């Protein structure tokens, strides 16, 4: 269980990254949604014990992160995949994982070997594990990052944009892997890809300018946009009203079909449509800004 109370973070130059964040996160997969710069990575880094908050308290499985002892104890059961993952290009994937495993205090050689092989298997890198990391593609590097986060069988897994750079097949595999793991542990998934959340989380928060704008289930977020989603078709060259939020555009033979949020003029003959999680998110952000 992670408890966050009245969390503020202000960077140098008075840049306020988080404002009065209060969250309780239990076992299962928790999604963090938000635009770039919303404060997601700052919040993840604070939970991972990499950054000190300016104000507020945070407890990870009963360990107070404001103390060095608590931080050290919390890191013992943490798996972390940073947004911008760095690797040593001169090492092979197996050597790198072995290195991280030792730093995670897995000192038993046999146990380490078993966990490394299992992690490599999960991210499908076993065949290329003895190749130097400098020869890996972006997606493969991301998978190495995921593999290292899985080492040590962490009770808390923090993954920041894990699907960035992965192909669709790998994305689905990773989502399934995380969902399986979430049954017995806490996973915090930060992303701006709404689909990743809709497919794997049953609890989420939306951050905007450092504030928690929404907290609830994906279903609740979808409900926010109910009655606001429409399909309208206009002639080529014409655009819908300025007041409408365009979600998608589909070019037809002699017209354009728009999926819009808001209340369109009846002259468009709007067709009401079932909202998706993306609609709910966009409507929430739109409403907050208006």
């Amino acid at each position: 269980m992670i408890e966050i109370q009245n969390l503020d973070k202000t960077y140098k130059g008075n840049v306020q990254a988080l404002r009065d964040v209060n969250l309780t996160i239990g076992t299962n997969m928790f999604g963090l949604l938000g635009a770039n710069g919303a404060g997601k990575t700052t919040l993840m880094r604070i939970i991972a014990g990499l950054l000190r908050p300016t104000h507020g308290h945070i407890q990870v499985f009963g360990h107070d992160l404001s103390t060095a002892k608590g931080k050290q104890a919390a890191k013992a059961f943490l798996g972390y995949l940073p947004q911008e993952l760095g690797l040593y290009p001169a090492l092979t994937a197996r050597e790198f994982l072995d290195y991280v495993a030792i730093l995670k205090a897995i000192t038993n050689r046999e146990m380490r070997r078993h966990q490394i092989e299992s992690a490599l298997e999960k991210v499908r890198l076993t065949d290329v594990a003895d190749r130097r990391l400098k020869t890996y593609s972006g997606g493969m590097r991301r998978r190495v990052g995921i593999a290292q986060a899985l080492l040590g069988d962490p009770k808390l897994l923090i993954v920041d944009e894990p699907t960035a750079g992965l192909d669709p097949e790998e994305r689905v595999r990773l989502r399934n892997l995380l969902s399986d793991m979430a049954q017995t542990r806490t996973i915090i998934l930060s992303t701006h890809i709404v689909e990743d959340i809709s497919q794997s989380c049953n609890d989420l928060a939306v951050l905007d300018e450092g504030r928690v704008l929404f907290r609830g289930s994906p279903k609740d977020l979808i409900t926010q946009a109910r009655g606001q989603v429409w399909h309208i078709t206009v002639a080529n060259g014409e655009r819908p009203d300025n007041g409408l939020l365009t979600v998608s555009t589909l070019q037809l033979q002699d017209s354009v079909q728009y999926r819009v949020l808001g209340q369109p003029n009846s002259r468009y003959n709007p067709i009401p449509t079932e909202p998706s999680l993306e609609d709910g998110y966009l409507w929430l952000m739109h409403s907050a800004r208006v």
Partner: protein
Amino acid sequence: MITEWVQAAAIARNEFRMQWRRRALLVITLAMLLVAVAPVLMLKNELDEDQKLSEKVENLSSRGLMSFVFIPVGAVLAMVLPFIMADAIPKDKQLGVRELLDSTPLTTGTYLLGKMLGSWLSVLVSLLAVILPVGAAWWWLIGKFDVTYVEPWLIGMIPMMVINMGLAVLITAGQPDSRRAIPIIVAFFVLLPAVIGFSPNGDWRDAFNPLRPGLFFHYTDTLRPNPAQMSVEAGTSSAQIRLLSVELTIISGLAQLGLVWLVVWRWMQRAK
């Protein structure tokens, strides 16, 4: 405690592996080897089989080995290798690995110790990779030499390696990348010695000079015909003065290393 040692050993092994897989250390080691092998080949052509057996040649051989091989190797150790070791910590930040390392239960002290052990191990292997084959080649091609001559060199070089490589790793710890680490090394290992200067007879300057002249002069004195007969000042031979200078250099070097360690450790703890 065992976990910390295993972690430090893993960092050292990783550092050693990366230093050797990158080209810089390998190139420097090969260059040192080339410089050290050249006099062997030149001398070999000038001596015939009978000459090789004479005692005079053994003496000459010993001095030649010490002068042509160990002095340039020592100079590289003092002035070039700190540049190679300077990015041990900045490299982690530059590559973006540091955030990952900080998310593990690794303590700052273990991290620093591992990095220093790695730099010592890398340099030690580099020195051995030069000295052992050159010594063997010398013995085989030129003739046997007095092995005890190696002792003063080791007395000088091992502490220099420990102190200077350790300092190179620590004083650059706050830099975000290798490029920013280099000026720090230039300032410490090139400009500072120029400011402090050398003392011909061994005084306090030897203790603070990062090139550790006390260790060098002790070694070069050994090469002279008979150190005990050298100029005597107030009842103490210069060899004895040199030995005092060696002890002073080592003690003050280790004290500098300890002090810098403490400052860097505290700074990194606060930054966490």
